Each structure stands twice: as structure tokens, then as C-alpha cells.
């Protein structure tokens, strides 16, 4: 607020890389994080939240969006959610080959397990070159809160 008691608005973009989990529980954690960041950054209102969904966790964007809308209240009631996808990259620690994760060849059990706990990928997937389960998830593990656009309360 300035000296005349007027709110001075300007767009404030927060660039965070935040790891979260899936759908409803995921939506809760996203909203808690956004709320906390909004308070830390003294945002008067939050306009848009950009979320990046990694392929590994196979989060369903429409369910996530629904959960976010259902759970948004107060400061976050009118937030626009942008949900973008991201590829998941795996790197073998034994032979160093890098490859992209795809759930296509997985059965339902494996696919659901990885959805709930992405680290279960080490049980169901092996390095395509040497067959080792010892690989690193180098990107696209879960869900990132990539960007928050809001209006900052100025002093």
C-alpha cells in the first residue's frame, strides 16, 4: 500500500521448481505451496499458476485440474491453472545411456505403482542397453510448480 492508502499492483512472477505428488493429494500440496509462497511474497492476489507434469508419474491433467478447482478457496479461488507436460529422462548408472520413459509397454499394475510412487520404476523398468535397474531419474519425476503470477501488495 502506498502513502495515499492505494494498492499498487504489479505482476510478480515466482520461479520455483517444486516437486509434488499426484492428483487430489497433489492438488492439496500445490495449493498449500502456492498459499505459502503468496504469503512469503506478500501477494495480494494470485492470478495464474503454471504446473509442469512429468511423464513418469502419469498424473492425469484433467483430474488434477478438477481437484485444484475443487480445493481452491480464499486467495486462490479465482486462480487460472496452466498444466503443462514434461518428458521424463532416465540415465543408466552402469552404461550411461540416456533414454525417455514411456509407460506404453508396462502392464496396469506396474503403471499404477509408478503413478503412486515413481521410485517403483526401478522395480519395473531396466536399462534398455545393459538391463540394469540402477538408473537415475534425471528429469520429469513428478510435478513442478513452475510459475506463479500474482499481484504484489506494495508498501
Amino acid at each position: 500500500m502506498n502513502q495515499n492508502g492505494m494498492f499498487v499492483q504489479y505482476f510478480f512472477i515466482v520461479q520455483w521448481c517444486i516437486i509434488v505428488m499426484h492428483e487430489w493429494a497433489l492438488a492439496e500440496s500445490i495449493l498449500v505451496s502456492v498459499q505459502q509462497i503468496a504469503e512469503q511474497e506478500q501477494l495480494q492476489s494470485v492470478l495464474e499458476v503454471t504446473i509442469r507434469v512429468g511423464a513418469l508419474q502419469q498424473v492425469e491433467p484433467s483430474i488434477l485440474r478438477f481437484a485444484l478447482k475443487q480445493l481452491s478457496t480464499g486467495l486462490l479461488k479465482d486462480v487460472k491453472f496452466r498444466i503443462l507436460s514434461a518428458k521424463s529422462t532416465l540415465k543408466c548408472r552402469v552404461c550411461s545411456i540416456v533414454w525417455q520413459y514411456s509407460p506404453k509397454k508396462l502392464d496396469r499394475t506396474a503403471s499404477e505403482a509408478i503413478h503412486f510412487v515413481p521410485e517403483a520404476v526401478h522395480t519395473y523398468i531396466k536399462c534398455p542397453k545393459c538391463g540394469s535397474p540402477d538408473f537415475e531419474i534425471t528429469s520429469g519425476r513428478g510435478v513442478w510448480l513452475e510459475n506463479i503470477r500474482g499481484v504484489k501488495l506494495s508498501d
Partner: protein
Amino acid sequence: MIDPRTSIISERLSKIRRIIAVSSGKGGVGKSMVASALALSLAKNGFNVGLFDADFTGPSTHIILGISNDVQPKEDKGLVPAKVWGIAYMSLVYFVGDNPAPLRGLDVSNALIELLSVTQWGELDFLIIDMPPGIGDAVLDLVRLVKKIEFLILTTSSLLAFEVVKKQVMLLCELKMPIIGIVENMKRDNTETIAEKTKRLGVEYLCMAVFDQKVETAIGDPVKLLDSAIGELAEKLCRELVGNKGNIDAL
């Protein structure tokens, strides 16, 4: 970088009165047996109990409790643990089955955070955590993430086990974590060595269980387990935890 799951974890655990990590610096001292028997004993005494198998690379509480593969958590705004023998039960085995889960430190941390974040425990009197051996990622993560965690430490009568346990106690003291006490398991003699060494550490020596052949045959049979030396130990621990009143008000 901020990890929002931390704040959700606090919320998920907020309705649990006591969170007890059954742990040991040393492997093979009977953590999973004692954790399972303690959960069973508390449930038998009328408490709402949860059991979380945090030993991701070597889970065994499901084998001790004889939990079949078709038991699964329910998906409801997260995961609601299945009720087994009156215990709310959560384990990575729901997701990996009997297959190996070769996880490195970062993967262990991420899986632990994921399960703590997504599990809807609801109201519990006790959450018993079966810890992996050692003082690595899981211990450090739980110290960081679970604010009201208390440690129940196991050793055997072996000085080798105790020397490793001593390091764990030193670490937990440095971290200012509450230690309920030390339990001596698989005791084969009448010496007071471990009790004396425990007192010298400034930690309470809670109780002991004699080595009992029946324990091996009780695997998969909770009724038999409660009838073994481990079952007796669990009863003693149960009384230790709830006091003489033996009811919820004593917590």
C-alpha cells in the same frame, strides 16, 4: 527449491498422538519383529494403531503379519492404509510386490516423502515405523520431516551390535531427538552388560526378550508371535508406553 510435501506431511500426521520409530544402527536385531508385535499388542489393548514399513529395500512386516498380496490401500484423496489385524498398514510392497526395489539414497528419500505425503492415516493413538537399519537417509529424513518422532532402539546382547547402536544414540542425542529407550533382543545369557552400558549412555534400558525358537515359527502368524518372547516384550513395551493406566488418557 521448496518441497511443498513437507507441509502436507505435517498435516497428514497431525491426528496421530505418538509416532514411534523402531530402529537400530545394526541390522538383524529384530526391528521388524518388534515393530510388528508392538503394533499388534497396542491394537489388542484397544489403541488405534498404524504400522509403516519404512525399510523400502528390505520390507518384511507384511511377511511377519502374513499379509496377502491382494490386500491393498484404498484410494481416497490420497491413500488410505488397509486395516490388517486391527492395524492401519502401509508399505512399499503394495506397489512393488515381492520384487526387489533397488533404491539409492535420493530414491529412498523421494519414496518416503511420497508415501508420507499421500497416506491418509486419519486419527491414530500410535504410528509405529519399522525403520531400515543404520543411520542413513531414512533416519535423517524422518528426523527432518516428522517433528514428533520418538525413537525406540533395539540391540542384541552382542557388543558388536551395541557399539553400532551407540553411534545411533550419539547421533540422535546430537539431533536432540527423543529416545524412549533401548531394548535388548535375543538375549542368551544372564549378564547385565547391555543394561549397564545403556545406563552409561544416559539412556533408559527398557526391557529385554530372551532368544526364543518359537519366533521363527511365528512368521506369518500374529497369534503365535504374540505368544512368543517377542510378544511378551511387546506387552512390556505397551505398558511402558501407556503407563500403568493402560488407557488412552495415559498417552
